[in-house]
């Protein structure tokens, strides 16, 4: 085993995702503490320029047509082979749509322990300690791997991205290799990308948002939020349960698998504040949260809060705005 830190750099539509820079910055710090190198790993087709943007000690990129688009089976095979071949001390994967397909599978293939939902990572006297955010953000669990080597899947936003961008005085060594495993016989085939439906209001461009969650209760109450949004000249956005239920279109979803919004005022009504939702709105200038549960995590990020019933509040507020 080496003391290197492998960072799987994700990219989508020709762009390196922020999580990759976040993990690269952290990975470099850990590699230095462990006495190894931070090695960013990029899988794709024609990805040299992406590889050059990563502020790691070195970047290993695998160029293959079968890796042109994310493919869990192809990525999984290549990564498993690289881990077995190069025996890194730590493998960092994003706890993202892509990383969640890979990390747990790699843990079984390689026999390395996995610690998931990681938002804290340290090398204490040469030993790795990972902190996982679990139970909907209500609990932190600090854990140590059974052996020396392990895999972690990191939450978006846990580490600063700028530390992982290539900068002055850092010229990562690039290494290009062919796929170490055959990729011709995949059962999983990428077909196409489906862009979000256009034509709806762009919730990322609104100075104020009326955002609703499970607390809205049912489709029949959506109207109450619509009326307030109309009075404010804006749109209704929502957390995942509302769009999953089909009460609002997907284009209105704020959070990890939806959109990231930064309005001047974000009204969070009946939203508990799951980590996946917070990821998409914590950058708002002012957050006002209303939820009947005084312990809802949304109040930890909100500036102002109240515990009254949102269904009474909505019409009352609409009245006041209309004047």
């Amino acid at each position, binding site marked *: 085993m080496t003391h290197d830190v492998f960072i799987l750099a994700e990219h989508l539509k020709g762009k390196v995702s922020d999580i990759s820079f976040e993990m690269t910055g952290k990975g470099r710090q850990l590699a230095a503490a462990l006495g190894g190198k931070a090695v960013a790993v990029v899988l794709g087709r024609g990805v040299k320029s992406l590889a050059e943007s990563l502020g790691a000690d070195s970047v290993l990129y695998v160029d293959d047509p079968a890796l042109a688009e994310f493919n869990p089976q192809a990525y999984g095979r290549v990564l498993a082979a690289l881990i077995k071949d190069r025996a890194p001390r730590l493998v960092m994967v994003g706890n993202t749509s892509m990383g969640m397909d890979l*990390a747990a599978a790699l843990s*079984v293939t390689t026999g390395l322990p996995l610690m*998931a939902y990681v938002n804290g990572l340290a090398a204490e006297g040469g030993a790795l300690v990972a902190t996982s955010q679990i139970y909907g953000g209500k609990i932190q*669990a*600090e854990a140590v791997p059974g052996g020396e080597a392990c895999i972690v899947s990191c939450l978006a936003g846990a580490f600063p991205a700028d530390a992982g961008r290539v900068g002055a005085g850092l010229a990562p060594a690039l290494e290009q290799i062919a796929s170490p495993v055959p990729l011709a016989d995949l059962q999983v085939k990428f077909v196409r990308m489906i862009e979000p439906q256009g034509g709806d209001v762009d919730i990322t461009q609104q100075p104020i948002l009326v955002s609703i969650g499970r607390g809205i209760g049912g489709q029949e109450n959506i109207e109450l939020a619509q009326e307030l949004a109309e009075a404010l000249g804006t749109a209704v956005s929502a957390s995942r349960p509302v769009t999953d239920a089909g009460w609002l279109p997907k284009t209105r979803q704020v959070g990890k698998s939806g959109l*990231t919004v930064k309005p001047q005022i974000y009204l969070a009504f009946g939203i508990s504040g799951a980590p996946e939702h917070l990821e998409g709105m914590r950058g708002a200038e002012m957050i006002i*949260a209303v939820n009947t549960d005084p312990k809802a995590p949304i109040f930890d990020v909100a500036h102002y809060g109240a515990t009254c019933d949102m269904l009474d509040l909505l019409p009352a507020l609409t009245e006041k705005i209309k004047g």
Partner: protein
Amino acid sequence: MNIVVPIKQIPNLTDELEINGEGTNLDHDALQYVLNEFDEHAIEEAVLAKEAAGGTVTVIGVDTTGELDGALHAALAKGADKAAKITGDFPRGTDSHTQAKLLADAIKGLSPDLVLTGVQAADDRDGQIGPMIATHLGLPYVGVVTGVAVKDGKAMVHKEYAGGLMGEFEVSLPMVVGVQAAHQPPRYAPVSKVRQIAKTAKIDEIAGGEAAGAGSAVRRMFKPQSAGHAEMWEGGPEEVAEKIAALIKEKGLLKG
């Protein structure tokens, strides 16, 4: 088509979560358990797939609570055909690696065409069970999926990325899918129907083998210290509305 849905029970997150005396785990005995909400979606997607293409749905879980029957009866009431539970010395909070191995061993004997499970669970500290089950079975896996359509031995799946972008994949069956959301909201089973089923349903019992173990040990569990907290307003809807309206006005965001 033979569809299998592995499920997991997790603590009810609306309850206060207490940490045990050693500070290394939850005080599981004090908690209510519910079905992982993503598994609710996996059950719905399985029943929808059965309705579209025919077949049977088998729901299976590791009985870590001694109360798995209730979740299995509810799944049967929603349209699943068979139910099975894996028994043994697997306490509440049993790690994902152990549950995935037990489930994979049991599922192997069921020769599934399609395995649908929740993409994640709130207690997956050592990872999600879907990709682990797939790896143990040697099957392909695609997760964060919001729709599965099966035709001619292949599944078309839609995988979500950030910002509403989706990738479409064609996968040869058998495969394992990590369901983010069913393509329609999970159906509701009336309590009376669940009770009726509980009286007659047969749940297969499978004796589980060894615990695989998470491969890592929690040395400290704690509640996060939030960096800040909202300034809380007392009062009813009228007073709160008044305060919100004043802030909106202050920011110059009133229309007209």
